[in-house]
């Protein structure tokens, strides 16, 4: 029975990883920017939720739109007025820029919100669905649902709407996209904004199940990175599968091998994927081509 519980835990955790990975993967796949500040942007969402809960007792789930919009606008402005200026530069420059941004955001949050670990505990925390011996905490179930819904809607957005198609077109062939009247600057900004917005939502969901401080930003980015590699860049279904896979892998490896080895195993898997199938499990030669 324990093993079923552990698989369930893995899936619940995995959906969260998927959501943190989707935004990162999209940005990487479309704009070729490895956004090292992704985790820090997620934490902005977490602090928004924390403060609305602390000061006005607003339910964390209700603050999802707020953190989405706030980080969306932040991401849009950032890409439109900062990143776009150097997006054609070498990958190293972009890495330095996003790394600098990460340091700035982490220090900003440390200054304003302190380095203390925070956690949000609404009254209904700890209630669980019981299926025989299997326990499924309602909060984790809700987080799972929201993550899956957001990942799927993101996929629909990319496939069905004009802007979504424009994002895919830009990613596929930037020159051809420009010829059809798409402005890459705006599309890049939109992509980065969506990525940041999804990260912001992740931050909100994070407050419900974990404790956080500005210092965990790097760990979140790392998870997003692994999910993107596993799933294949820029692919929504890839991120979803990569996330779930990572979640199940973490929980089951910590059960069978030992909790202390779970990070090593996640990295190991990433390296194997990079060697065997560098485009990721779901990757086709589609989004992640080198464009420069």
């Amino acid at each position, binding site marked *: 029975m324990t093993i079923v519980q552990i698989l369930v835990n893995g899936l619940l955790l995995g959906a969260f990883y998927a959501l943190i990975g989707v935004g990162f993967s999209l940005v990487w796949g479309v704009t070729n920017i490895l956004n090292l500040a992704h985790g820090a942007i997620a934490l902005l969402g977490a602090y928004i939720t924390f403060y609305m809960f602390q000061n006005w007792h607003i339910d964390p789930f209700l603050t999802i739109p707020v953190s989405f919009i706030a980080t969306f606008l932040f991401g849009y402005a950032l890409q439109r007025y900062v990143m776009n200026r150097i997006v054609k530069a070498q990958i190293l420059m972009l890495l330095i820029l996003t790394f600098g941004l990460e340091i700035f955001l982490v220090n900003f949050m440390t200054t304003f919100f302190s380095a203390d*670990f925070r956690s949000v505990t609404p009254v209904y*925390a700890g209630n*669980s669905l*019981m299926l025989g011996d299997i326990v499924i905490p309602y909060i984790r179930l809700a987080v799972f649902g929201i993550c899956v819904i957001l990942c799927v809607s993101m996929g629909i957005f990319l496939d069905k709407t004009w802007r979504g198609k424009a994002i895919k077109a830009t990613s596929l062939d930037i020159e051809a996209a420009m010829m059809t009247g798409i402005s890459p600057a705006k599309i890049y900004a939109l992509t980065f904004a969506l990525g940041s917005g999804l990260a912001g939502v992740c931050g909100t969901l994070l407050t419900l*199940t*974990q*404790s956080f401080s500005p210092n965990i930003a790097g760990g979140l980015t790392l998870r997003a990175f692994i999910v993107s590699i596993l799933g294949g860049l820029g692919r929504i279904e890839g991120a979803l599968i990569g996330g779930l896979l990572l979640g199940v892998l973490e929980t089951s490896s910590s059960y069978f091998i030992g909790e*202390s080895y779970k990070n090593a195993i996640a990295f190991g898997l990433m390296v194997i994927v990079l060697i065997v199938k560098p485009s990721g499990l779901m990757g086709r030669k589609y989004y992640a081509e080198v464009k420069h």
Partner: protein
Amino acid sequence: MFRKTIIFILCLLLAPVLTYAADEIWFGAALSLTGKLAKEGNLVKNGYELWKETVNKKGGIKINGKAYIVNIKIYDDESDPNRGAKLVEKLVTEDKIKLILGPYGSESVFATSAITEKYGALMVQGGAAADKLYSRGFKNLFGIYTVATDYMNDTLEMLKNKNPKPQTVAIVYSNDLFSAQVAQGAKVSAEKLGYKVVFYQDYPKGTQDLSTVIVQIKAKKPDIILGCGHFQDTIIIIKQAKDYKVNPKAIAFSVGPTLPDFVDSLKADSEYVLGSAQWTQTLKYKDQVFGSNQAFVKAYKAKYNEDPNYHSAGGTSAGVIFQRAIEKAGTKDDIDKIREALYNFNEETLYGRIKFDKTGKVIGKGMPVIQIQKGTQKTVYPEDVAELKVVYPKPQWK
């Protein structure tokens, strides 16, 4: 006129030297007043200064009927143990001070005590809990913090004879040096007290998810869960224990419940969780300098306008113990006699009853156990100096 001015200036310059020669005892300390340990370092300094002020108000340290005023020379080590070591060297060799009060933090004590050992100076420290400090064969270092491997002894001792009697213990710990030592000690102590350790596992430092560990613990149905880790881990363990309906008779942590943030973060879920503390404000110990622990707390609040914590109390206690040893030795200069007095020390202080073993490590002081009751940390053990009775077994999660 010119000559008079010269003489006047000379007098001014000589004044400090002349005072220095008066009836005084000088102590030295290199503390983290800036840098990453500045917060704790300054708390220890507050403790030292309160001790100095209190002793001097009472006329100073009395040696064979004669009173000596206490002075402390404090340098800032900038939270760098190497700098701390250099400063202690300066204290001993240039300032000629052989009575050294300890810095804060195991690394700093490790580095500076090597210097005091080398020059035959004495150090009494109330700021470090690592076991390794006492395994180097030093004879000039005395520490009053209960060491890491003894952290959970009192919690286990307290729970031993409760009703219904707990039989099994699950121990989880973060895989850093300090937490691993706490866990190791807890395991040995649990087995010695007749518990069965049914789960013993580490997890990576800074982990964000412990659901697998919690599920595994649940399968073992332990009576007691001991968590040896850091503040954020305690939050995750409590949250997930509630999520997965793990209901042991007691949950105890080495670090976490003593911090005010613990209750802020967990709200009602923090109720009845146990924690180990080096010292608490409410312990009813007597003290030869302050009168009692309560009197110390009052004096501290009056001087600094805030509650003392175990860092400050550790600083003050180090001073008190040094003072009592000097008074008993009947000398301020003979290091051998003072050391002997420290080895034979057996007195109740505001920090508890202090005795040292041959390595200079405090023995039998114990860790007071606190329990969150109605949103505040209450001392529940040792029973004779506790505020409230412990609530056991812990009620199930609501």
